[in-house]
């Protein structure tokens, strides 16, 4: 690694940490109904939207109604995206005359975008019309991220309110997230990206003469607007198949830096907002620290995996699959960030990562996408881990475990377990199925432990709503489209519903005032403890499967055998 590599990583962390309280306190103002800068600009629009859809912004509901609204909204989004894909050939804005999408691919894609996963079994430029990309996919990029924010807002209200069953109004949470947070940020970011050279047009694909005299068709389209939200909303669904490795999506080192930063920006800022909303900024910073430490641990291991010498490639760093414009450090940083944050955008092919780096990517997703994680999703996933941690360790102080004054009882533990169990079941059972069935193995391009890692990665990515892939697996088959679609749904709503249930249950409880007998959740001891629980609970579940995939591959590589 060069000094520039180190400087860039340090700069990344510094800028991220600096922006966290700025955006965090802005979001705190937005979601607690205080005056903020965007209110004079867009406040009228908010009112108009409520009048248009006939929603009463003041009326709040209990967790069941909240969940119902959320599910209905997502279901309608799913049906809409599914239908426009099925009939895209008859719809406007299709200059490349792309045919209708197959039904199972359409199901997979709609599920994937509605759930903020953006797993893409298809190649964007050869499958989706501009209409589908803009009206279907980009819109879902916004609303799926806003859904994540809505859930964490409900969870926060559950924690801070007492003796009530009312946890908020889904429609106002959704509207405010989009209007005041996602939209302004995306517009700003898109403009910067266009400035860096990302394309934004409605042109037909352009045939060009290459320097060697060859013939090539360059895909065009409104890329910048989708890329801005794909990064900011931790969606990750590329406009083009090559995602952020494509020069039209990610032209310069500066755009690359900003894209990496954009992935972590909102999830990191949400921790600060969380701290402010629960009444102690320290609580937010404690969560931020846990995320940052886990991120850095993964980054170090991943960089080690890429830069270390090995008998197969000698002392050379592993360049295969990396974008030469950015180099290894940037590719590794991107891969760690995107798998941490459930984003799934990539600027290098994860299939070509060294076994250790590939394992870091898989572990990042296996841990439930809580290392910053998806917008909103990372934080509510983390709250679920906090509940488990508080319950296991909180007993050791000799009181019924409590978090922020709320007693953690059987119901909360049950819901936290359900959330954990759902993702574990989804990953393990389907990986097992795919790795022994002919239709599962049919998609494999690689053999040995690497092939196993590809299958494991696919289901882990789906369950974590990440969406990135070890590209060696051809997943646009009936089997993978449907099973992955199912795993994505389980990984999304199997966590959202328990999280909202916890919010509802916590809201009904009284708040015990803190004293020196209270289990503290804002100091280094707790930070260490939470990291330990995340690693041990996650690690114990997946240790065997990791051993048979990346671990054994790494050991074999050290013996001079690669796949």
């Amino acid at each position, binding site marked *: 690694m060069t000094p520039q590599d180190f400087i860039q990583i340090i700069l990344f962390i510094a800028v991220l940490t600096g922006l966290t309280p700025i955006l965090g306190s802005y979001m705190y103002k937005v979601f607690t109904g205080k005056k903020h800068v965007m209110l004079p600009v867009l406040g009228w629009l908010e009112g108009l939207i409520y009048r248009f859809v006939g929603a009463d912004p003041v009326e709040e509901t209990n967790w069941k109604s909240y969940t119902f609204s959320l599910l209905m909204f997502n279901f309608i989004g799913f049906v809409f995206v599914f239908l426009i894909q099925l009939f895209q050939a008859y719809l406007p804005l299709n200059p490349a005359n792309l045919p209708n999408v197959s039904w199972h691919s359409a199901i997979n894609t709609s599920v994937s975008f509605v759930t903020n996963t953006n797993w893409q079994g298809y190649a964007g430029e050869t499958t989706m019309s501009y209409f589908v990309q803009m009206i279907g996919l980009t819109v879902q990029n916004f609303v799926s991220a806003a859904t994540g924010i809505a859930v964490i807002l409900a969870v926060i209200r559950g924690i801070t309110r007492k003796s009530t069953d009312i946890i908020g109004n889904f429609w106002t949470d959704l509207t405010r997230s989009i209007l005041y947070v996602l939209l302004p940020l995306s517009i700003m970011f898109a403009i910067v990206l266009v400035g860096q050279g990302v394309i934004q047009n409605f042109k037909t694909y352009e045939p060009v003469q290459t320097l060697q005299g060859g013939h090539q068709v360059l895909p065009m389209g409104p890329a910048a607007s989708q890329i801005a939200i794909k990064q900011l909303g931790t969606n990750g669904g590329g406009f083009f198949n090559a995602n952020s490795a494509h020069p039209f999506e990610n032209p310069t080192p500066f755009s690359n830096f900003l894209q990496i930063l954009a992935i972590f920006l909102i999830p990191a800022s949400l921790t600060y907002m969380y701290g402010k909303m629960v009444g102690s900024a320290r609580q937010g910073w404690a969560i931020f620290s846990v995320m940052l430490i886990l991120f850095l641990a993964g980054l170090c291991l991943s960089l080690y995996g890429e830069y270390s010498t090995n008998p197969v490639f000698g002392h050379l760093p592993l360049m295969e699959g990396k974008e030469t414009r950015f180099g290894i450090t940037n590719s590794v940083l991107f891969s760690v960030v995107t798998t941490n944050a459930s984003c799934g955008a990539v600027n290098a092919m994860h299939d070509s990562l060294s076994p250790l780096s590939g394992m870091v990517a898989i572990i990042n997703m296996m841990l439930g996408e809580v290392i910053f994680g998806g917008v909103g999703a990372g934080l509510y996933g983390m709250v679920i881990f906090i509940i488990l941690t508080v*319950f296991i360790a909180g007993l050791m*102080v000799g009181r019924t475990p409590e978090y922020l004054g709320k007693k*953690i009882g059987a119901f909360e*533990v049950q819901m936290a377990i359900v959330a954990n169990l759902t993702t574990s079941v989804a990953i*393990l059972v389907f990986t097992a199925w795919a790795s022994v069935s002919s239709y599962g193995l049919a998609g494999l391009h690689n053999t040995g432990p690497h092939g196993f890692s590809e299958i494991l990665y696919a289901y882990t990515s789906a369950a974590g709503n990440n969406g990135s892939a070890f590209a060696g697996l051809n997943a646009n088959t009936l089997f993978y489209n449907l099973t992955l679609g199912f795993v994505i749904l389980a990984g999304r709503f199997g966590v959202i519903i328990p999280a909202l249930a916890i919010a509802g249950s916590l809201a009904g409880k009284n708040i015990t005032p803190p004293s*020196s007998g209270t289990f503290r959740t804002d100091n280094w001891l707790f930070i260490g403890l939470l990291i330990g629980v995340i690693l041990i609970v996650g690690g114990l579940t997946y240790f065997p499967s990791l051993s048979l995939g990346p671990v054994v591959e790494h050991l074999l590589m050290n013996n001079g055998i690669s796949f």
Partner: protein
Amino acid sequence: MSTKLNTSLFNKKIFIQAAKDSVIKLNPAVLIKNPVIFIVAIGSFLTTIIVTAGMIQGNFSSFNFQIAIWLWFTVLFANFAEAIAEGRGKAQAESLRNNRTQTKARKMTGKLEVSTFATGLKKGDIVVCEAGDVIPSDGEVIEGIASVDESAITGESAPVIRESGGDRSAVTGGTKVISDQIFIRITTEPGNTFIDHIIELVEGAKRQKTPNEIALSILLSGLSIIFLLAVATLPAFFRYSLTASGLPPSQNLTIPVLIALLVCLIPTTIGGLLSAIGISGMDRLIQRNVIATSGRAIEAAGDVDVLLLDKTGTITLGNRMATDFIPAEGVTVEELADAAQISSLSDETPEGRSIVILAKEKFGIRGREVHQLNATFIHFTAQSRMSGVDLKGDDGTAYKIRKGSSEAIRSFVQSNNGFYPQKIQDIVIELARQGATPLVVAVDKKVLGVVHLKDIVKGGIKQRFAELRKMGIKTIMITGDNALTAAAIAAEAGVDDFMAEATPEGKLRRIREEQAKGHLVGMIGDGTNDAPALAQADIGIAMNTGTQAAREAGNMVDLDSNPTKLIEVVEVGKQLLMTRGSLTTFSIANDVAKYFAIIPAIAIALYSRGNGMGPLAALNIMNLGSPQSAILSAVIFNAFIIILLVPLALKGVRYRPVSANAALSRNLLIFGLGGLISPFIGIKLIDLLINL
């Protein structure tokens, strides 16, 4: 019975009984109550079938046989942990039953007395008891006054006064009247008496899971399901890897190995010890002579963060101490001290003794030989409200010394045609105003003066409150004294807050206020007027000397009627929760080492190039002898750790009054880090033994 029995941990009788019970508990209907251990039992059963089937087919696998044996031992050890915890309670219940003889009751039907069996008594029946009678059932004194020996339930041999009306009207079935006669109205149905409750509780017959235990069981079951999945999907992963390594699918993992892995991973340690921890928590409370109506109450005790403490008995010595002699006009202080001392020589009450001590310290008046005095001592009675001594002087004249309340002495002096001076009355009023108790001393018709009895703050109580504060518990002193006196004592004792001139309504209001602020409140009380507050408090401890109403309102009864108990109860509650958390952490942390033992053992052949040693052998960081010994060592360690931790589960982790943070750091270091490291050492040692 005395609850202070020989219940030492490995009492031989209990031990043998527990060993028997652990086999009886193999009954699936019993096992299913503990999901984690139930899974182990199913695993043991399956492995046994596989071993048997192998034997019949003629290929006996000694490895599988050993796995089966150790799996069964895991179940037995878990059962044993529960059985030994129950055994201690059962032994107590046994002695309770033995002490409860088939009592006869003297039931009153109208004016007639009918002899009947105690078990036939119904609520509302009226019985009469005289000296020597055993009180047949729980009830309330409606007429008369008597001293009662309650050692059967409290272990305290000194008799107590029970009288109609007031706060000392409750009597307990099984206790014995030793003087006078009382009429009792029975207040409980047969089979529902206090002693029946104790028997039920100590036997654990009606033991229900507490809320925290339920939550923990859910966590443990959830983890078990996750591990079940991790193990159940392993053969598929293995099949893929075997194919990729060019090995035949027949080399896939066998069921006994999978079961061994599963049993090692699921939290068997805490699963096996969970109920023992709960039972022993109840047990520790009983050893402190506190009876809780439910396990839930003990847990809530750990959560209490506001304690309402009665001044008298908790903060100050229940009995006031003599601190000064104030003579009447024309009497020297020595005369007064001398008279007060003589009259107190055979007064065994703490007040009486304190007078003797004060007289000795201040004026060097030594104890005199009681027999030589030719004296008749008059003991304090509830009616006379004074005590004293009748003496014959050297000249043969008899005179009477009395000490007691000012009213009692006034009527005593006046009945002797004496005069009760206004000055004395003034002193009495002044002392009372300061919160002290004046004791007037008189000889025949002459008032000698007043003994100043003062509240003495208990030694060490200030430190105790400081400890409680460290644990995050706020103390509030409740007293009937005026604010001035209360403030002085509160400051001296170091309580956080006080409530002066407290009325029952005031107490109730205060509890509600604290609860609305999110606090959990604990209090201890005895009177009928305490009952609403006891019921409102999260932990209400009724004193055994208290009224039936108070005992029913609270969720614990303190047999010793010692108000300081509240603090001990809180500690027992905290210790119970700590033990649970610590062993859960230990159990989960153990899994890391077990993986490092088992995964390399089962995956050793994968991707090997000819020599049978695949790359995953590198994970064998403990350098265990062979794949088989590695798996066996993990299983054996897993079984033995349960038995090794039984003493800890029964005694509870060491409790110290420190802040939550300090307690967490300490327990995390011992049980978290210890839980990570110890199995590496344990498994390695077992492996070395196996391979000897």
